[in-house]
């Protein structure tokens, strides 16, 4: 039998160290919903989502109560809508986002991802229509999340798409007061089975319906490291691995149980450390626990590299299928320690960019001055895409030009999205660089065959 110390340790992790399952995300293929008439396409989308996800929330809640482990979010990811709507004659795709929003609301999920387009090598007509609809779609819906993939290691970077997304992000901020940008991600090397928002979508290589689970647990890792103060990094890495193993085993159990009860195949467990604005649930505080005075100072990138790697090594043995983004997230507004470091001035955009070379994703939930030019945002996207393309990893930009705000102000989102201190961007122009357009070719190491 399990001994008392282990039982109490689990309860303490849940009660005091914010251990939870961050999300159960149901991926649903909408390829069968295509129709030339917009109205029919919308009603097919609504019907299919509400039918497939009818029992998602109640099943998640039942598992939560029986195992005594919080499952914070139940969410839905769908086929990139640009593919579903390609045959629609309409030029405005906002009604599709509204249909997704209504379906999400009817199912009781807080977010639905997949108002997305994959344009890493070029645009189809549907892709252009979808991207043009993003600002209004995000302003007129509450639960819809959008993502656009503009680069891959195999295809290179679509710089026309980077330029366009700079403008779309600025327009989204204008129409929705900034919050819309919290639901919009620009990817390089986007993954098809990511359960985390705002970048979740159901890829074309995925089955009809699937359950993916995202675990979390920065607080548990932080607590574990407090017991090895001053010891060498070998000990730090081992401690993180053991903790990640336990957390992932729990994720695997919940994923299998949800899959069985819903009669939907299990996809992957995403081994991520996903912070929240709550005290004691921060990735930045883990890095500081390793001996840094403030997150963002010299040594932060090395600390994050160790953390990211150890989480994967510990977690991968604990799950039958690992996927998604898997690693440590560094969303500024959603992490209490990152917010503090940004306020303190120790965390700059340049340092965050360096950190994205070794974390699981990219520049995440970063507020910049409201008057930042679209070309500067496009250039930030291009830099981040280059890191992803060359290093064969997923990178992303979720950046918020905070309307009417400047460096030192704070943009409040509330809830899980937190609050973001506005960070400085370089004042020097990237306009002519972005105006070139075209594609940056794929790197030599993309030629693997």
């Amino acid at each position: 039998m399990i001994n008392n110390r282990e039982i109490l340790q689990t309860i303490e992790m849940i009660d005091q160290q914010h251990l939870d399952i961050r999300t159960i995300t149901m991926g649903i293929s909408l390829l069968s919903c295509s129709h030339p008439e917009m109205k029919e396409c919308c009603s097919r989308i609504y019907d299919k989502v509400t039918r497939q996800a009818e029992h998602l929330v109640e099943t998640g809640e039942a598992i939560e109560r029986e195992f005594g482990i919080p499952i914070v979010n139940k969410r839905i990811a769908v086929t990139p809508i640009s593919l579903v709507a390609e045959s629609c004659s309409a030029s405005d795709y906002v009604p599709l986002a509204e249909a997704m929003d209504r379906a999400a609301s009817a199912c009781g999920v807080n977010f639905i991802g997949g108002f997305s387009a994959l344009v890493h090598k070029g645009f189809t007509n549907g892709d252009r229509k979808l991207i043009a609809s993003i600002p209004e779609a995000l302003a007129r819906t509450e639960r819809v999340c959008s993502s656009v993939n503009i680069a891959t290691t195999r295809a290179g970077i679509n710089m026309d798409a980077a330029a366009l997304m700079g403008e779309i992000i600025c327009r989204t901020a204008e129409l929705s007061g900034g919050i819309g940008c919290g639901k919009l991600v620009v990817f390089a090397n986007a993954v098809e089975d990511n359960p985390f928002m705002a970048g979740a979508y159901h890829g074309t290589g995925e089955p009809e319906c699937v359950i993916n689970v995202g675990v979390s647990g920065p607080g548990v890792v932080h607590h574990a490291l407090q017991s090895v103060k001053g010891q060498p990094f070998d000990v730090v890495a081992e401690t993180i691995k053991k903790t990640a193993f336990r957390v992932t085993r729990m994720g695997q159990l919940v994923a299998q149980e949800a899959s069985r009860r819903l009669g939907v195949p299990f996809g992957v467990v995403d081994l991520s450390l996903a912070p929240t604005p709550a005290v004691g649930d921060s990735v930045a505080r883990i890095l500081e626990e390793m001996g840094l005075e403030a997150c963002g100072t010299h040594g932060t990138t090395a600390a994050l590299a160790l953390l990211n790697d150890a989480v994967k090594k510990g977690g991968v043995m604990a799950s039958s299928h690992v996927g998604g983004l898997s690693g440590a997230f560094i969303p500024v507004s959603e992490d209490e320690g990152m917010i503090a470091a940004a306020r303190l001035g120790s965390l700059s955009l340049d340092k965050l960019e360096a950190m994205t070379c070794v974390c699981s994703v990219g520049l995440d939930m970063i507020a910049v001055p409201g008057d930042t030019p679209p070309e500067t945002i496009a250039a930030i996207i291009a830099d981040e895409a280059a890191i992803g393309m060359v290093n064969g990893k997923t990178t992303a930009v979720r950046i918020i030009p905070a309307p009417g705000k400047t460096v030192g102000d704070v943009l409040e989102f509330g809830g899980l999205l937190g609050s973001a201190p506005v960070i400085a961007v370089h004042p020097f122009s990237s306009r002519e660089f972005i105006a070139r357009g075209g594609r940056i070719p794929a790197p030599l190491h993309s030629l693997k065959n």
Partner: protein
Amino acid sequence: MHAIVTVIGRDQVGIIADVCTRLSSHNINVLDISQTILQGYFTMIMLVDTAGCDLSFDELSRELHEAGAARQLSIRIQREDIFNSMHRI
């Protein structure tokens, strides 16, 4: 189905009797029990079999939680699987 009942809170007379009476009234068999005072807190851990229970797991969990709240105790019941998955390969 096996489940773990944990009772944590300020020590007071009659906690074990109260919890056990409730469990037996719902036909739940206690398989193992340990109790200690940990850093001033009453801590009891029980392994129980809920196979013959006349309530759903949800109802039972709610009843125990409410009974605990009335005595300023935290009483929870969780399926044993969660502890096994975290601590045993």
